[in-house]
């Protein structure tokens, strides 16, 4: 957990500070705004979740932070500050120096995220050679240790193996080893367990928690699964159709969700302590039904709390009274849960 701030001193400098981020893709069918008005910050050691369904812009946000969006087709605007430096003002070279060393990412699908024709030892070692100026032999030794640390027994002997010789869970462990090889201060995990079997999911999450806690590594967890959030994250940002709709610390978010979309996400998680026979409540419709934010709230068509204003006026993200100091709390809704107007 992070250091608490006293009332007089400003909160500690954020490691990552994203302000008014917007990402527009130019395609043959015109421009598509994938992300807009996204702001959040991550302090050293903090665990932040970006939550939303597919298409909510959470992955695009993380790719923008990493600088992995295609430069030809994606226009990134706003500011992304890392350790005080504006990433968007950096040269490609400067950003490459940060990637893999200072900030690293774990991807969703371990089956396709490893190069099939390169031994895993090389795939781990190359990041060490790139950023830590290690020789091949040093990188090899270190890679073996890393594999052991992510729970692959006999790590140093498996360096010559190829991805197809490993199971999905093993491959995700390799990807985690790659991401953590240079002890990054910021780790972004994009749905790291979605593609895995349920039993493996828990193991991988547990591994991630072990590896990032106590090292001061800040974690940005991208997920659609609030269950993942509950066990791992301090601060949550819920995204819908490219914008943040609710920001809150974990506890108030789970206890008192304000945005109807957050409420919907929570109600669709199966709970063991729910009364027997109570049906799960899915959110009606699908993210494809999202309208643009231009003419009202994009969630309005699927929203049970919809009032007239929702379809005529675009709600702004408004800061809320913070229940816990040091956390961000904000809401983008005209008719939040608990204070319905009609």
């Amino acid at each position, binding site marked *: 957990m992070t250091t608490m701030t006293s009332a007089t001193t400003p909160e500690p400098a954020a490691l990552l500070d994203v302000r008014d981020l917007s990402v527009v893709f130019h395609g043959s069918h015109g421009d598509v705004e994938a992300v807009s008005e996204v702001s959040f910050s991550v302090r050293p050691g903090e665990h932040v979740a970006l939550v939303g369904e597919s298409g909510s812009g959470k992955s695009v946000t993380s790719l923008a932070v990493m600088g992995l969006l295609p430069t030809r087709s994606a226009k990134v605007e706003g500011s992304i500050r890392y350790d005080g430096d504006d990433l968007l003002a950096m040269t490609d070279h400067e950003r*490459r120096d940060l*990637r*893999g060393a200072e900030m690293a990412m774990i991807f969703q*699908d371990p089956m396709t995220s490893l190069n099939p*024709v390169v031994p895993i030892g090389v795939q781990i070692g190359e990041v060490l050679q*790139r950023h830590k100026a290690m020789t091949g032999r040093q990188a090899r030794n270190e890679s073996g240790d890393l594999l052991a640390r992510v729970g692959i027994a006999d790590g140093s002997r498996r360096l010559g193996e190829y991805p*197809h010789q490993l199971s999905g869970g093993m491959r995700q462990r390799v990807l985690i080893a790659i991401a953590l090889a240079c002890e990054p201060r910021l780790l972004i995990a994009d749905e790291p367990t979605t593609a895995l079997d349920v039993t493996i999911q828990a193991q991988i999450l547990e591994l991630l928690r072990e590896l990032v806690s106590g090292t001061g590594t800040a974690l940005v967890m991208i997920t659609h699964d609030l269950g993942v959030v509950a066990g791992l994250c301090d601060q949550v940002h819920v995204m819908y159709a490219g914008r943040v709709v609710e920001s809150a610390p974990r506890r108030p978010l789970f206890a008192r969700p304000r945005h109807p979309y957050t409420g919907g996400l929570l109600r669709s998680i199966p709970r063991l302590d729910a009364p027997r026979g109570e049906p799960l409540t899915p959110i009606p419709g699908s993210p494809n039904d999202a309208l643009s934010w231009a003419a009202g709230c994009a969630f309005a068509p699927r929203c049970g709390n919809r009032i007239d204003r929702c379809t005529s006026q675009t709600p702004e993200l408004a800061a809320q009274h913070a229940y816990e100091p040091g956390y961000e709390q904000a809401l983008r809704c005209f008719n939040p849960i608990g204070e319905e107007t009609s």
Partner: protein
Amino acid sequence: MLRFTLRRLALLVPVLFGLSILLFVWIRALPGDPARSLLGERATPEGIRQIRALYGFDKPLVEQYWAYLGQLVTFDFGSSIRDGRPVTDTFLEQFPATVELAFFAIVFAVVLGIPLGYAAARRRGELVDGAVITGSLIGVVIPVFFLAILLKLVFAIQLDWFPTSSRQDARIDATHITNFYVLDGLLTREFDAAWDAIVHLVLPAVALGTIPLAIIVRITRASVSEVLNEDYVRTAEAKGLHPQVVRRRHVLRNAMLPVLTTIGLQVGLLLSGAVLTESVFAFNGIGSYLFDAIAQRDYPVLQGYILFIALIYSLVNLAVDIGYGLIDPRVRVS
């Protein structure tokens, strides 16, 4: 890896066996008396008797086939009807010339094709891409011999940049050890001779290499575009690797797999294309000899050369398969 190679090699046996049967039937399917048709208008009673003895046409078919097979495994394909020389001899003599030509053609195609295809994939939908695609389309549809004639007219006759024909200037008294003229020139340190041989190779190699070039460009473009969208390329980029490392180790190594297969398949195109190009440039390889053999229905040569070419083609593709296994670990285990 060894088992993989042996298994592939074993698969070659039935193919060659079947091919021998096919060619056996083919010779007998020639219209009229096979001996007479083998000799064509030049048939003399003496010639016909020779052919009959050579192919054993008087014996039962099965016996004939065994005799024929016996000849094949000892690489005895009979002799040319035109010059009476053993087919195997002329083939071995001319083969280096065609290999040299095919080598330069494929080098031309690969050295130009892979970077062009890569650039097109990188800038998909932009002007470069359009130009490369258009160029490659034109490359595939021009008849090889038309292109050869065109190149000869423009660059040899009108601009006089390159010689019009042959493998080496007749005035150069070069020593030939291997019959690969360029290699010979290098081995004997007669660099003038080597350079002259290279100059003679340029136009035929370009004519022969154009279709493979066009095909390699297209396959490279398709394959690289696909690989560029792969998750593992993004993983590599997330490591902050230098773009060159990403390109070499992560993009090209994967993208080259289908390209490698294509190059192997091009060998067949090169060997048959040589029949069309070599004759235009009076280049003394198997192609121009085969061209004359076709024109004069020199069936022993036709049969022997086709069998040789099929054998080489199969072996090259076998080598490509093995090379594929070396690059792609997934093939090795399967």
